[in-house]
């Protein structure tokens, strides 16, 4: 039962992706897309989805959209501006460190969201991750603080707040 519901959820997502990629809604496209997404979901669903119930939770989707808008406009712009200033400055001022950043989320998707958000902002790159001790090792171009908790507040506080709401 869990398997069937996860297949249905994944195939709906794949169908939306197919239609977005194709850019046409003729009946032929709809039929072919439905068939293909069900077939592909049947052999990938158990890899992709852990709990199918999370897929249909409206609140999580709302948080996803809010996070996407916030991240793609404000946070990215700030980080880009910072690194661009450093590149164009005549002395190239850098103050790099590899800092430990602990996290408290459980699911794989939440961890990945935090790590990708950290890496996608210029200025911070996740170098390694330890699953048992729940820390990221982050190369930070301007390490103002090197203590774990303070660095966490500087780098990944917002990401973690939203990742917890979306995926945990």
């Amino acid at each position: 039962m869990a398997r069937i519901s996860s297949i249905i959820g994944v195939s709906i997502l794949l169908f939306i992706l197919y239609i977005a990629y194709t850019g046409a809604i003729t009946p032929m496209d709809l039929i072919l897309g439905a068939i293909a997404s069900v077939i592909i979901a049947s052999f990938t669903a158990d890899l992709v989805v852990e709990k199918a119930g999370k897929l249909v939770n409206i609140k999580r989707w709302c948080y996803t959209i809010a996070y996407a808008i916030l991240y793609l406009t404000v946070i990215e712009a700030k980080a880009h501006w910072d690194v661009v200033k450093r590149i164009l400055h005549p002395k190239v001022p850098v103050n790099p460190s590899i800092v430990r950043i602990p996290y408290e989320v459980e699911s794989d998707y939440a961890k990945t969201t935090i790590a990708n958000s950290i890496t996608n902002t210029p200025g911070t790159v996740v170098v390694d991750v330890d699953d048992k001790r729940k820390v990221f090792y982050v190369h930070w171009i301007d390490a103002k603080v090197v203590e774990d908790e303070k660095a966490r507040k500087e780098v990944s506080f917002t990401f973690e707040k939203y990742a917890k709401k979306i995926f945990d």
Partner: protein
Amino acid sequence: MIWDIVGWIGVALIVLGAIMDLIASIGMHRFRNFYLRLHAATVGMIGGAFYPLIGLGLLSLSLEYLGITRYYIAGISFVSALFVLLTAPVGSHVLARAAHRAGIKPEPINVDRLQEDIGKGVMEE
């Protein structure tokens, strides 16, 4: 009218992407070690690939004379942008991890917690 504005936003994003690419390549040249260059590469990846792809989608949506083809171009642009957003950070992360494991020292550096933890034996290699 509204589509004109959308088209100009698209053009602006594409121009911004070109500038970001230029700055990223300057940064690749000016930064002095591998890990710092990854930050410049991120500028080129998000500012120089993700935003221009979104801009291309918006621009093609606003061009009336493309007919039904414009939805096709826009769909491909948006899906590609989504995939860039998903996969580019993984590439950076895997490269950085491989470099650190291969023993490339991140010089200059203040504090290297990863090296410390490997030295203590807490973090398994």
